[in-house]
């Protein structure tokens, strides 16, 4: 986890720093004079060598200081913090949707392998994986927000303002983000369950006269869940990235939309901050997945 963070942090710095085009020139716009650019560069500390800037930046990061926005001089950490709630709620609810659709679909397909049900479930999974995320979002807006005014088409209300309204804003984005990953989860849980169903202990369970239901639910499913979980972990990490698109489609003021806004403004400290935050969330998800492994599978022990 620490290694991943280190790699990402270094890459983020390299990418955002060693490439031509000075932020100062971009901030000042078309009417700039060379003297203004030099002065602003000094003010922002951009006149120092890249290696020095990297060490300074890394030192600040360790102390929890993400720097200040080039756009409005607000603290990067504070701005990101204020945008965290919708992104976390959106990702979690999408994950719940993806798992609730994906795993039952995979189980059905595996239990009724090579039947119409299997074919149908896998067709749904393929379609889910191929639909462009933002397009699905637009279709949902068109159908459920514009035609039938069941849900708001865009925006967000914070939990602290009106918890009842928050979920109404989240339904469509969460479906958008969740459905695209349900397909992968369905395919993987099908493959994992099929593998487990061929093992000796499943045959033993069947031969001692257990009902098929008990065999699948108690013997096979739990063992298939462990490898499936790692797929869910990957999906969760991808969803954190996917929130960039979904939040833009539904105008949800979360971290993902902040990233797009900052890219369009070339607000590099903010971009660095958001990307590091996303890397941290991804690393956290992986850690949680590893810990859940041990809960599900008593054979796995850490330390």
């Amino acid at each position, binding site marked *: 986890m620490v*290694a*991943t963070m*280190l*790699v*990402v942090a270094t*890459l*983020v710095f390299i*990418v*955002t720093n060693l*490439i031509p*085009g000075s932020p100062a020139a971009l901030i000042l716009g078309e009417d700039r004079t060379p003297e203004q650019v030099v002065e602003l560069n000094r003010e922002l500390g951009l006149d120092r060598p890249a290696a020095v800037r990297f060490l300074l930046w890394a030192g600040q990061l360790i102390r929890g200081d993400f720097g200040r926005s080039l756009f409005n001089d607000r603290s990067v950490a504070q701005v990101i913090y204020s945008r965290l709630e919708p992104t976390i709620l959106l990702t979690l609810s999408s994950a719940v949707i993806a798992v609730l659709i994906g795993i039952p679909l995979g189980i059905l397909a595996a239990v009724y392998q090579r039947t119409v049900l299997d074919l149908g479930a896998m067709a749904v999974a*393929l*379609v889910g*994986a*191929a*639909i*462009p*995320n*933002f*397009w699905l979002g*637009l*279709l949902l*807006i*068109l159908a459920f927000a*514009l035609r039938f005014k069941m849900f708001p088409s865009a925006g967000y209300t914070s939990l602290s303002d009106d918890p009842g309204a928050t979920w109404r804003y989240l339904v469509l984005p969460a479906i958008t983000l969740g459905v695209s990953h349900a397909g992968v989860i369905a395919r993987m849980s099908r493959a994992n369950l099929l593998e487990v169903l061929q093992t000796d202990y499943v045959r033993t369970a069947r031969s001692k006269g257990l009902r098929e239901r008990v065999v699948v639910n108690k013997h096979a499913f739990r063992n298939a869940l462990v490898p499936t979980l790692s797929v869910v972990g990957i999906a969760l*990490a*991808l969803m*954190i*990235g*996917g929130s*960039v*698109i979904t939040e*833009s489609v539904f105008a949800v003021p979360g971290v993902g939309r902040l*990233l*797009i806004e*900052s*890219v*369009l403004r*070339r607000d*590099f400290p903010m*971009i660095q901050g958001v*990307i590091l935050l*996303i*890397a941290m969330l*991804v*690393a956290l998800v*992986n850690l949680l997945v590893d810990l859940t492994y041990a809960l599900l599978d008593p054979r796995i022990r850490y330390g």
Partner: protein
Amino acid sequence: MARPKDIPVQGRAAGPKVSTKVRSVRLRAFRRWLDTPATVVGLTVLLLLLLAGLLAPFLTPYGPATIAIRERLLPPGSEHLLGTDHLGRDIATRMLFGARLSVAVGTLVVIFSSAVGIAMGLLGGYNRRFGDLMMRMIDGIMAFPGLVFALALIAALGSSFFNVVLALSFVYVPRIARVVHASVLSLRNEEYVVAAEALGGREARVLLRHILPNTLGPVVVQSTFIFAYAVIAEASLSFLGVGLPPGTASWGVILSEGRNYMLGAPWITLFPGIAIFVLVLGLNLLGDTLRDILDPKVS
């Protein structure tokens, strides 16, 4: 179905005939692959896309950027098959030219990421220390959502066609490097590789002549998926306003320009989305069947 005489004979007695028998086995695997419905669908979609892209100017009387304000927001009809957008541009025409861009982005990203990825994978398999370091980096990058990485790169490079291709190539290099690295490591212990080394073949020669050709199967499989990802990613980036510049006839740009007219003119957003969906579905099907014949270990 299995005719005994077609099974390749192992051992000394077979002599030089083995190679033709092996070829016939390969040919039959290829035929079986072609007979799979998913392959047919995938190949058809890919072929249609190539044709649409190549023949775009000949298939339509309109230009991709021809503005006709009087014909703005027309629904699909005989004049404009898929309708027009807010500037009266023909959607079908823009989509045909968009196919061109999608092919270009997909192909270039596949070429760049494969070239760099294969080189890195071979080097990593050749030099253990470099390989370990490389896999560390790759695990770090691959744990990270690719689209966000592409966004960061584009933020630094500026948005243009070439920079989008560059950023996406960078994002997908690790996927190729990883599969090549893995196959190099397993191939190094194969008897024919050990034999080639025992015969005194230099490491570079063994790597290029004996190992490289056998890593290409998984690379082809990955390339199919990377093509699909690249098409979706380009459309997504363009949709977000950080990919290809506004006004470009790219599927993502058409979609993003159409979203403001979604209620009155849903065809602008509907058709490019369907095109992306069908293309990605076809490529995924193709990748799945290719994986079954080229990379059987994974499936």
